[in-house]
């Protein structure tokens, strides 16, 4: 038995954490149903009336999940407003962002033995900003398709221009489908990196998304940002 002195850094508000887990669930549901919408299952029953491959149900699940995800963004915004630890946008406008990112990247490329510890790693933050861009593309293209069943409605007025910019509505479908795959690729990388940080670097990256706090033996470089 050894005694280790650890410090607790409160980072993520409950709003961000709840949003995060809603987003995880909804992205999985949206991806699975989305693939089923693009490539519906084959009818495997001997009689058509026995069909269990209801497109209507799959699409409804997809739409409900999409609305829940969009609605939960309000939690993210509220967390952003009330808690400094939730403000994860990469500091592009500060010079140290670039040197720190290079430092982290060199370590991840196994060219350096270690990198300085961060409560919120600059490279991770940049990847989250990218995820929000991908999500925004999905939301805009998604609503552009969804609301165009009523081209004179308010929804179409708000999102119909996306179809015009992309050239045609078919292109909107394709962009929506392709970007979904990029989100899944992000998720694979994200899952690996947080698990790696938790178990190899002692960064409590996974546990903090449940508890909100990081309990660390060392002193992270950006600890002053959340005080």
């Amino acid at each position: 038995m050894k005694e280790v002195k650890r410090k607790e850094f409160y980072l993520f508000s409950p709003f961000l954490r709840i949003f995060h887990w809603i987003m995880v669930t909804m992205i999985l549901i949206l991806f699975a149903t989305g693939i089923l919408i693009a490539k519906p299952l084959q009818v495997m029953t001997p009689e058509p009336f026995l069909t269990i491959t209801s497109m209507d149900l799959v699409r409804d699940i997809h739409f409900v999940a999409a609305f829940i995800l969009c609605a939960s963004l309000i939690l993210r915004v509220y967390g952003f407003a009330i808690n400094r630890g939730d403000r994860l946008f990469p500091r592009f406008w500060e010079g140290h962002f670039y040197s720190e990112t290079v430092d982290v990247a060199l370590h991840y490329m196994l060219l350096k033995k270690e990198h300085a510890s961060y409560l919120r790693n600059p490279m991770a933050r940049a990847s989250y900003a990218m995820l929000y861009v991908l999500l925004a593309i999905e939301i805009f293209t998604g609503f552009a398709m969804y609301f165009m069943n009523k081209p004179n409605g308010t929804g179409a007025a708000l999102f119909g221009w996306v179809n015009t910019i992309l050239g045609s509505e078919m292109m909107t479908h394709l962009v929506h489908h392709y970007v979904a795959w990029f989100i899944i690729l992000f998720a694979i990388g994200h899952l690996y990196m947080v698990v790696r940080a938790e178990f190899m670097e002692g960064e409590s990256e996974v546990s903090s998304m449940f508890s909100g706090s990081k309990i660390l033996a060392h002193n992270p470089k950006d600890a002053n940002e959340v005080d």
Partner: protein
Amino acid sequence: MQQRETLWEAYLRRGLSRRSFLKGCFALTAMMGLSLDKFNDVVEAASGRPLPVVIWIHGHECTGCDESFIRSASPLASDLVLNEIALEYDHLLSAACGEPFEAHLDQTIQNYYGNYILAVEGAVATKMNGAYCMSGGHTFTSLLQKAAAGAAAIIAYGSCSSYGGIQAANPNPTGSAGIEMFVGGKPVIKVPGCPPIPEVMTGVVMHVALFGNLPDLDSDGRPKQFFGNRIHDTCYRRPFFDAGLFAETFDDAGAKAGWCLYKLGCRGPETYSSCGNLRWYQGMSYPIQSGAPCIGCANAHFWDEEPFTDRLPKYGKIGDADKIGIGLGVMATAGVAAHAVASVIQRNSRDKVAEENRHDED
């Protein structure tokens, strides 16, 4: 400028009764896609407004739109051309030809300047200063600009004049483009389709002819009454889509049973047209009804959106986006696994060095 007669006067001249005139107006109201409370407006316009002159020019195209137009049943295209509008100039339907015909165009433009309807079929060929499409010794571009300058309204018939058409497909050797940029900023009513539905063509020109104004247009310039719904949302096969009953190939039991053609690349969910409710040729059929998936011929760029018989485009031998996505996912997973192993090795060596250093200090 000679006095032109109204539709009512045309009925009188032919000895038709007031009752048949009202019946005709009623049919017109339905045909133009208007609601029945507009009936009074139609009667008023038909008895008060003189019928307009139409100049119909053809550019870079196949004249398929005209082939569609002459098959219009309500009203009969012959009725429309001979009695309801004054079609003064049409490359395809005119009996005259040569220099007198071209002189007649100039005369018509001069006589009815600012009052005639210009109907345009076909794209503008922009490359080589327009030399790819000549008409009467001049480029089509100059003909279009000349005719558009004095037009009261411009109707773009077909996907060519609306968006450039099939000849605008990549790599677009003639530089085909829609007419919108070449008419001096005048509003263009787009009636896309390859070809458009005959009744839609006659309906739009009758609307402009009767009321003298543009029909309600969407943001893309298409009349809302004919292009306000997706084919998918008006398709009689939609229940099969909702139930998940799809034809997998063109010759399977599902195709025979008339199930949804979504998996065969049907563009109904992306295409705005009246195919689903008006249908073609007196409501006889439309592509989806005859078992052919919609190719979205009323869409901009439909010609470049291959494949027409599948939802997702394929990229060479690799396959479609889903196959590529699965491949990238597997590669990413393998990559992070390899990275994890390398990271453990790196950390162990790092710890070893740190431990040795500590031993040295001791």
